[in-house]
């Protein structure tokens, strides 16, 4: 059998002046992990088979009925050997990816800080604020098993977690988001430009911009706009700003700002974007943040949110349950809870007109797609590069 859908080799990743240096073996380690991830995406199909062929019939046999709840289903699946093996390996690959990325970035922690500091020096487009601390939900968990999350500095000026994120995203996504892992940002920027030609945003906000890889495609397609990325993680902002400077951007500002308490004036942005952000917030904050978005948006302005696909009523109990795997086992706890909220209600509760609500699907733009990465790939529980985007015009 010929191997299909091989991930691109790690050397295809786009580098820039603050990108961590990697040895031959460090890159080889990432090649191994990317391939292991692909493999596990394929054998994840065995979970559905194990459910249909083994777990469900056995339960019915014993209890004379189907599962009543996701919990009951989960307890039964937890005893299945295929599911156990797949889960153990998936947890393992995520931990290996963190260790691989942390060892190579922390090995050069001082150099990374120096490179970043040199590019940031004297620039007024990086605005840090010590009074802003990370929200409590970020302090309660290390999302996707990244020790120290987005905000931890092991020493003053440490940017390792951001550099680790930058180097590793290509591995976790098996390169499907392109050389800069910015396929999501590119897709939304093109959608806004192509589908809404009347709309000429002058001031754009990207909330939870992280290291800004999805912010830059927006700044590129709207070069005359003032683009502001906000985040609470200092390492992300410092590294993201240096990365943007290194890549030649001068219309992006990086600010340390808490999204549920933004220092911006009412009605001061034309477009407010979040990308893979809301599912890493919390049950109360998501409302506070959406209210802030409404407040800061100009009348006629647009807000769009790239998110994991919602659960729909026609999705089976098994499908909903397996989609929660990452919530509990890859430390994305709000991912599951957020699915209980209807995004339309969320937006309506925060002031948006329900008639203006829209939901679209965007496919990540992959500049590495040479035709061998075709869509015969089995869907891997919300990790495919087709994203759900919801949002509204403020009218």
């Amino acid at each position, binding site marked *: 059998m010929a191997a299909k859908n091989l991930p691109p080799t790690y050397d295809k990743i786009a580098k820039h002046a603050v990108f961590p240096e990697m040895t031959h073996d460090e890159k080889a*380690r990432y*090649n191994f992990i990317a391939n292991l991830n692909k493999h596990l995406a394929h054998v994840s199909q065995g979970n559905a088979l194990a459910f249909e062929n083994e777990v469900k019939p056995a339960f019915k046999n014993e209890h004379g009925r189907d599962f009543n709840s996701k919990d009951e289903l989960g307890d039964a699946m937890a005893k299945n050997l295929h599911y156990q093996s797949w889960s*153990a390996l998936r947890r393992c690959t995520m931990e290996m990816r963190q260790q691989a990325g942390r060892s190579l970035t922390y090995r050069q922690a001082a150099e990374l800080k120096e490179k970043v500091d040199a590019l940031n020096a004297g620039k007024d487009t990086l605005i840090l604020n010590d009074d802003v601390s990370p929200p409590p939900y970020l302090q309660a968990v290390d999302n996707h098993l990244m020790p120290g999350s987005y905000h931890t500095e092991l020493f003053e000026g440490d940017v390792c977690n951001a550099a680790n994120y930058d180097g590793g995203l290509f591995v976790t996504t098996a390169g499907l988001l392109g050389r800069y892992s910015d396929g999501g940002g590119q897709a939304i920027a093109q959608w806004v430009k192509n589908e809404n030609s009347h709309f000429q945003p002058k001031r754009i906000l990207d909330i939870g911009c992280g290291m800004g890889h999805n912010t830059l495609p927006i700044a590129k397609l709207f070069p005359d706009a003032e683009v502001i990325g906000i985040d609470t993680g200092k390492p992300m902002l410092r590294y993201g700003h240096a990365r943007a400077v290194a890549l030649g951007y001068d219309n992006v500002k990086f600010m340390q700002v808490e999204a549920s308490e933004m220092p911006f004036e009412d009605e001061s942005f034309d477009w407010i974007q979040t990308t893979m952000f809301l599912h890493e917030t919390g049950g109360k904050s998501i409302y506070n943040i959406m209210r802030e978005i409404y407040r800061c948006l100009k009348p006629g302005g647009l807000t769009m949110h790239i998110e994991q696909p919602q659960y729909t009523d026609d999705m089976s109990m098994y499908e909903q349950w397996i989609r929660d795997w990452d919530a509990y086992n890859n430390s994305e706890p709000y991912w599951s809870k957020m699915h209980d909220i209807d995004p339309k209600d969320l937006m309506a509760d925060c002031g948006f007109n329900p008639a203006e609500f829209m939901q679209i699907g965007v496919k990540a733009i992959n500049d590495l797609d040479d035709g061998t990465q075709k869509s015969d790939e089995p869907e891997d529980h919300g990790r495919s590069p087709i994203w759900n985007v919801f949002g509204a015009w403020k009218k």
Partner: protein
Amino acid sequence: MENPIDYIGIAGNKPKGKRPYFFDDPAVERVLNITMAVGMELAVARERIDTLERLLEEKGILSREEITNYVPTSKDIESQRQQWHSEYISRILRIVQQSMEEVKNPDKTLQEIADDINQM
């Protein structure tokens, strides 16, 4: 600036939250995680050898075909290579060898031996 970080220790830090274990016996999962890490390092070494071979070929020092078609040219080389395999396998399967020795020669526990020695 000198690197302020013990990067080897830091690299393996645990993320927040109690770690889920999936196998009935967590020890199995522990062994799996160690095995996977070793498996990864083997893949890394394999990629390095591949790089070496390709560079050697590019520079005209040898061809990959020569590697493929290589056969030991003396009895000595043959036995060196086979001995390497034999030693390698014994190394990985040490625990099986020891359990066989134990079956052949049932041992006293160290407690019992300690009690014995106490009388010696």
